[in-house]
């Protein structure tokens, strides 16, 4: 354990990348998820079709493949670059892959939230003269979000754990599990304590998140 603790700065650095990956991916997944949902419920068949096709395809593709596609396909093979330095280039490609993947789950959660909103409220808003987008923005999404705070928390936790795939799936992004593997490879610390240490690190991040979202979902629940 001492050997592990003496390398704690490496551990902390690894987790700091995990957190960064999670934060950026969460932000983009959330925005893209809202867009996909808006398309999915829009009156325009083409938009509905595109959204459905996207969600159904990506959601049913293993994350590893999505990330490999971003890393090996778009980044390496096609030479598309998102940043000057290699470290940031792969970082942003990982964010792209994780967001593309996670947004589907955000969208599915939101859609289930939308389905809980009584149609009558939507009609009432329409009968006041609100446009489709005003209706979504002012009536539907705010209420849908409140009902899906819990599920969105689970999506976020899954995203945080999924960041570990980004280092193995061709991208070699820096994050906690990669740091762990490096520590094994270099033999700086005994395997078992290192495992336990990293597992605890993930728990330190995920458990409070779970509790926070549980608390929040009670807090914002809409009484009906």
């Amino acid at each position, binding site marked *: 354990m001492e050997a592990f603790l003496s390398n704690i700065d490496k551990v902390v650095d690894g987790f700091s990348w995990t957190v960064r990956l999670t934060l950026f991916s969460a932000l983009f997944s959330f925005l893209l998820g809202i867009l996909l949902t808006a398309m999915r419920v829009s009156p325009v068949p083409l938009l509905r079709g595109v959204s459905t096709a996207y969600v159904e395809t990506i959601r049913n593709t293993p994350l590893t493949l999505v990330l490999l596609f971003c890393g090996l396909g778009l980044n390496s093979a096609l030479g598309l670059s998102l940043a000057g330095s290699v470290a940031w280039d792969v970082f942003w490609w990982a964010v792209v892959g994780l967001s593309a993947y996670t947004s589907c789950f955000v969208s599915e959660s939101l859609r289930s939230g939308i389905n809980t909103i009584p149609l009558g*409220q939507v*009609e*009432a*808003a329409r009968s*006041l*003269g*609100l446009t489709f987008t005003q209706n979504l923005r*002012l009536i539907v999404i705010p209420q849908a979000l409140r009902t899906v705070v819990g599920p969105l928390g689970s999506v976020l936790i899954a995203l945080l754990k999924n960041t570990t795939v980004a280092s193995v799936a061709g991208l070699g992004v820096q994050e906690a599990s990669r740091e762990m593997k490096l520590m094994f490879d270099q033999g700086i610390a005994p395997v078992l304590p290192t495992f336990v240490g990293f597992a605890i690190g993930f728990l330190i991040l995920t458990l409070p998140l779970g509790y926070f979202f549980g608390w929040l979902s009670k807090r914002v629940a809409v*009484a009906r």
Partner: protein
Amino acid sequence: MTATPLVVLENVDKHFGELHVLRDINLSVNAGEVVVVIGPSGSGKSTLCRTINRLETIDTGRILLDGQPLPAEGRGLAKLRSDVGMVFQSFNLFAHKTVLQNITLGPIKVLGQSKAEANARGMELLERVRIAEQADKYPAQLSGGQQQRVAIARALAMNPKVILFDEPTSALDPEMVQEVLDVMTDLAREGMTMVVVTHEMGFARRAANRVVFMADGQIIEENTPDEFFTNPSSERARDFLSKILTH
């Protein structure tokens, strides 16, 4: 009073798939008039109401508001809807907004009123439906009768030309029906143009200028309330009245 038709339906037909829900409907409602629509379940009363603010489209025929055909979509449609108020059986208040916010949402977002202006007018309307003390509560904290009065205030806040009521009291406990009918009766007296689907005969007799009886998607009979309830001219209406009068 010179009769200016505010709402006109001309030869309106509508199907839901195979089902012919509105058959050649001709109806005209004058400004300031209160028309009660009555008829058996499934006769098309709700559908009739909903076509007037285009929550339902029609197959053939024309609907005019203030002499203008209903716009099909876009800004024009939104404007039309803000001119035609609607009060639903199930209140349909916005559950995540307070009572006052429910009322001010339309004026602020659709009519472009300032928040202060909309709040002032909102409170005025809440006074009018006798519920001002509940302004900061959420809909779920109110009784059904209170919610429905809020819904009426929400419709009034848009300064509509006409308000459609679709069975506004049928989801209410009996002791709350009167408080809602009282508010509606006041509105009728003040000259609001109203189309009201209801089986409340007391209200029809007190407030309506005309009763329209529907069955199977058709208007079977139109008459003054007194004449309709005491001496209906059609067999269908007699039959229907005997059923609702006996329970």
